[in-house]
């Protein structure tokens, strides 16, 4: 399912028009980004948790050039699915 289909479905459920839904989703994503940038967790009931994970610097070989590279540390966004979500999808399958 692509973004367009998702926004259309959400707009129906939230009783908003497409544009309003799109704006509100965009605002929500901005807020999620800011919460994660503060190194906080965002817990969504019956869905899961968004959090960040810090990755230390590491050495790896670049596949294209074959040269050993020192990659800098980074913060990555991580999602941990909740038990309810996992179970509901497992039951469906």
């Amino acid at each position: 399912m692509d973004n367009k289909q998702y926004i259309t479905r959400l707009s129906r459920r939230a009783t908003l028009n497409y544009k309003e839904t799109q704006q509100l989703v965009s605002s929500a994503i901005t807020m999620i980004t800011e919460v994660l940038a503060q190194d906080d967790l965002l817990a969504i009931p019956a869905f899961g948790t968004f959090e960040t994970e810090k990755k230390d610097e590491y050495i790896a070989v670049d596949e294209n050039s074959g040269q050993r590279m020192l990659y800098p540390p980074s913060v990555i966004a991580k999602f941990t699915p909740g038990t309810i979500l996992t179970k509901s999808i497992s039951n469906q399958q």
Partner: protein
Amino acid sequence: MKQTIAISAFAEMLARQSGYTSDFCEHFVVEMFKTIADSLKEASAVSVKGLGTFTVDDSGNVGFIPDSSFATDVNAPFDCFEPEPLDDDVTDEMLSMDDTLNNAETVEGIDDTDEEIAPEDISDAPSNPECNEVAETIIDDCPMKENTSDEGNENESDIMVESGEQSLAHKADETPETERIEQTPVVPDDYPEGDGREKSKRRSSVWAFLCGTACGAIVGAAVTYMVLVSGAGPESEEQIILGEQQEAEVLDVENTTADRDSTNQLPAVTPEQSIDSVCSSDTVIYDTVTTTLAQLSRKHYGSYEFWVYIYEENKDVISDPDRVEPDTRVRIPDAEKYGIDANNRASINNALKKSREITRQNKR
């Protein structure tokens, strides 16, 4: 420290930014993720622009691939770094062993110094063949001779400090030749004499430094005293009057045209008030709103709920707390002023209560 944000708090933040009510925003956020969950039951992947793609594998495990813009924003603190090519010589161990190498170098340095003062080297030191026999006896009695030579050097340095060159000349005249012969080998070329000289040099430099410091302090104190005594009278009065005038201008006091000669009135301009205002203005912290006041509250107080106090402090700048213009410069009040404590539940409840009051007022 990581803080878990509940959906209600998140909805309030979203409400303040979007302008919708917090109840609606909470409902919307729930629906937003419920739609993803429901879509994952039908499709193997759901893509949300700006957030990422949620996927389900064959075994029912849910995965998440963040969108590039989302990943970049989250990784903003480290975004300025780029991968660096490494030389072939550099290994993982070399990178991780920097500290240990440094420690090893210091240990080697200590070993070198030990080697320098090793008694075995002393046997090679005397080069004068006439003194070999005496030198051998000295090596046999090395520890004791070291002490005697040190003491001799200490005595020498004391004499140098006390009476300068004359004492040295006097001493050179008085010492007989036999003593000179004994003393030269007693002080082997490298080890004890060098140490003694260093000590005497250090002591003389320390004495010179102390004397210089004392002289400087005395001269400085004398000059300061002279300046204060000679120029305390009329200049100080002028300075007071000028200072008060400036303070009166700053504070926009109406009676700036008052008689300057009447010293009884000028102190009533309240220099204490001006000092207080200057001090308080120095301690006020300013910050710029990026998105919401709640974010600023989290940044400065450790919790999102205390945004109300930032709003209270900046009512002159902020008309609607739910719609703050980006890049608005606001004053961040001192936490003690409003009893802000992120670890205190009562403090958070007070802030929430105030938040509800502000929301009610804005609705009216």
